[in-house]
């Protein structure tokens, strides 16, 4: 930070608050997970959570460090353009509420593959669902873990790469512990604790900030514009999205955000932790309410950081945009509040990665091992054993990936994961729930078409080459101008699903289709 080590607050205090969080959550995880033998316990916490609990856990799963530090920072530096993200993230939940949550709860048990393969040929569709789940979880996780490295540098004052690698290892190991010991039940409680801390923390900061400006949003905005190098422009859109390409980029990103959330595998899996569709609906309602409060609070915190800290000091610090919220915390609450905010940010990374690891391990054990390798002939204990083993492997991969990606500009991976989810998962979910003719070939075309076009477009986009901010700035094989592929890949996926279904001529299984339709709306057969 710009005033030297002193303004990081006290790394020891930051570390102590974080250690306190880890100790409490590990104790809770240990207490709630006495028996985790059956697949239903490990994957879905016995479907015994209430809608309210699950709603708060969804908030915990969904609000990554990128939402907290990233959005507050984007608003502090770019102003209004940062706010546009939060709107996309929130509105996206209406897709989940209206079209996905209850129907998915009624037709599946543990994974996204359960729903997609319900009336299709099991093995190819589950293989596709698992591929998409693993790719999305891995990209999302990599972004989180790489962010952890930067956060360590910022908050714990660990400048060396060796020291940061060590902290990433510790974060990864604690996360593996949560998943192995706690399964879905333990992980859900970690999410609930984390979400409560996060929301309380931002609400308190918001109330304090508004109080400081006499509860006048206008006064806060004026001060924010006065202390930002962009001046009045932070109150208007367009600081980031000025040119035609960047406008298209913004539209592409907005589409991916609003259609992606309901296709994220770790979000879908959360709907299985409640007993029925009604509770799944209540989960979304709770999630929408807590997240609306959270995003409104980040708006105030972002502009507040611009007003009290100033955009130049934020950009001049180690963590650049990401340090806006921590710097603001230090400004208004001193070392203690900074310690709490740092711990909350860490807890956020930890909890989100735990949720992703659980999802990836469930998809591998349930869809790949049990259905594809063993054709459904497997004891629950053996399946859970495989899931736990996968969780360890995924966790270790996340640690290695996090260390390698440390310092790289990988923030685009989160937006990319949303684009993947929108193009591969949402299209197939909607088709199989609402279009009776949709068949196995259509499912495969839509999933692989969406995933493939996404990957291909990113590969030839400015993200990878041809721009100063690319992964390989020295090379130039850029063909596609947008950094987010959603604008093209989402229509491609819907079109591929339609064409695959129509051209294959393979009739859908009418009995299975009737079964799925009736169950999805009535909740029969549960």
């Amino acid at each position, binding site marked *: 930070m710009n005033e030297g080590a002193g303004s990081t607050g006290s790394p020891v205090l930051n570390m102590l608050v974080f250690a306190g969080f880890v100790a409490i959550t590990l104790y809770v995880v240990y207490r709630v997970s006495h028996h985790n033998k*059956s697949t*239903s316990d490990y994957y879905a916490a016995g479907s015994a959570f209430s809608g309210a609990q699950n709603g708060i856990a969804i908030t915990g799963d969904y609000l990554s460090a990128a939402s907290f530090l990233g959005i507050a920072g984007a608003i502090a530096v770019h102003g*209004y353009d940062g*706010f546009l993200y939060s*709107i*996309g993230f*929130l*509105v996206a*939940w*209406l*897709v989940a*509420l*209206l079209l996905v949550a209850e129907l998915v709860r009624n*037709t*599946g*048990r543990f994974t996204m593959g*359960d729903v997609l*393969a*319900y009336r299709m040929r*099991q093995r190819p569709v589950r293989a596709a669902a698992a591929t998409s789940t693993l790719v999305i979880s891995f990209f999302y996780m990599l972004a989180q873990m790489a962010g952890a490295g930067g956060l360590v540098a910022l908050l714990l004052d660990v400048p060396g790469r060796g020291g940061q690698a060590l902290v990433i290892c510790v974060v990864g190991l604690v996360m593996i512990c949560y998943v192995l010991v706690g399964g879905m039940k333990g992980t859900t409680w970690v999410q609930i604790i984390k979400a409560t801390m996060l929301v309380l923390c931002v609400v308190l900061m918001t109330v304090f900030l508004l109080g400081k400006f006499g509860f006048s949003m*206008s*006064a806060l*905005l*004026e001060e924010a514009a006065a202390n930002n190098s962009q001046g009045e422009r932070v*109150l*208007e*859109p*367009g600081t980031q999205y000025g040119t035609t390409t960047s*406008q298209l980029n*913004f*539209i592409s990103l*907005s589409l991916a955000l*609003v259609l992606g959330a309901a296709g994220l595998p770790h979000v879908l899996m959360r709907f299985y932790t409640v007993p029925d*569709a009604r509770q799944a*609906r209540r989960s*979304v*309602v709770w999630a*929408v*309410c807590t997240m*609306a409060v959270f*995003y409104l609070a980040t708006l105030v915190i972002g502009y507040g950081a611009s007003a009290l800290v100033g955009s130049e000091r934020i950009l001049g610090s180690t963590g650049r945009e990401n340090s806006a919220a921590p710097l603001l915390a230090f400004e208004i609450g001193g070392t203690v509040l900074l310690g709490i905010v740092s711990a909350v940010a860490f807890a956020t990374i930890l909890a989100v990665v735990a949720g992703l690891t659980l999802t990836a391990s469930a998809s591998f054990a349930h869809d790949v091992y*049990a*259905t594809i390798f063993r*054709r*459904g002939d497997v004891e*629950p204990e053996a399946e859970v054993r495989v899931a736990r083993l996968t969780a360890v492997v995924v966790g270790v991969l996340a640690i290695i990936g996090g260390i390698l990606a440390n310092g790289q500009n990988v923030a685009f991976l989160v937006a990319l994961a949303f684009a993947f989810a929108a193009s591969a998962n949402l299209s197939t979910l909607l088709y199989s729930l609402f279009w009776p003719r949709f068949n196995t070939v259509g499912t495969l075309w839509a999933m692989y078409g969406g995933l493939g076009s996404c990957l291909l477009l990113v590969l030839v986009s400015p993200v990878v080459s041809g721009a100063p901010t690319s992964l390989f700035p020295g090379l130039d094989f850029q063909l596609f101008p947008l950094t987010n592929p959603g604008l093209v890949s989402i229509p491609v996926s819907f079109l591929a699903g339609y064409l695959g279904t129509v051209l294959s001529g393979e009739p859908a*299984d*009418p*009995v*299975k289709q*009737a079964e799925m*339709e*009736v*169950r999805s*709306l*009535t*909740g*029969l*057969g*549960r």
Partner: protein
Amino acid sequence: MTQVVHHRITSRSRAPGGDFGGIIGETDRISTGIPAAQREPDYVAIRESPEFVALRRSFRWCVFPLAALFFLWYLTYVLLAAFAHGLMSHRLVGSVTVGLVLGLLQFASTIAITACYVLYARRRLDPQAEAIRDGVEAGR
């Protein structure tokens, strides 16, 4: 509840491996001696029943328009933010711009649509779904 829902066809057997994808799990395997196929409701008949057709109509009548509404409204907002900088930067009160107000309206509309759907689902959808479930369970 009509005859159709009470009626069940026992001849149709489940597809091999079918229950793995569905929800019928441990409870069916620890069965009471009755094969799962016999206790399985006849979903084709239920789907054709007037009760189910009515439920599906109520569901789609509510959900599709609401989804289209919020999607168009969000898209309008995104396009305005991308292209109509002049309008979005217009000051309404003090430093509060049209853009900020429209953004906050997105929050408000999200909450409003959520509330609408939840009320409708509780009043119209849940009782209909419950009646169909009860009918099927009574017919077993």
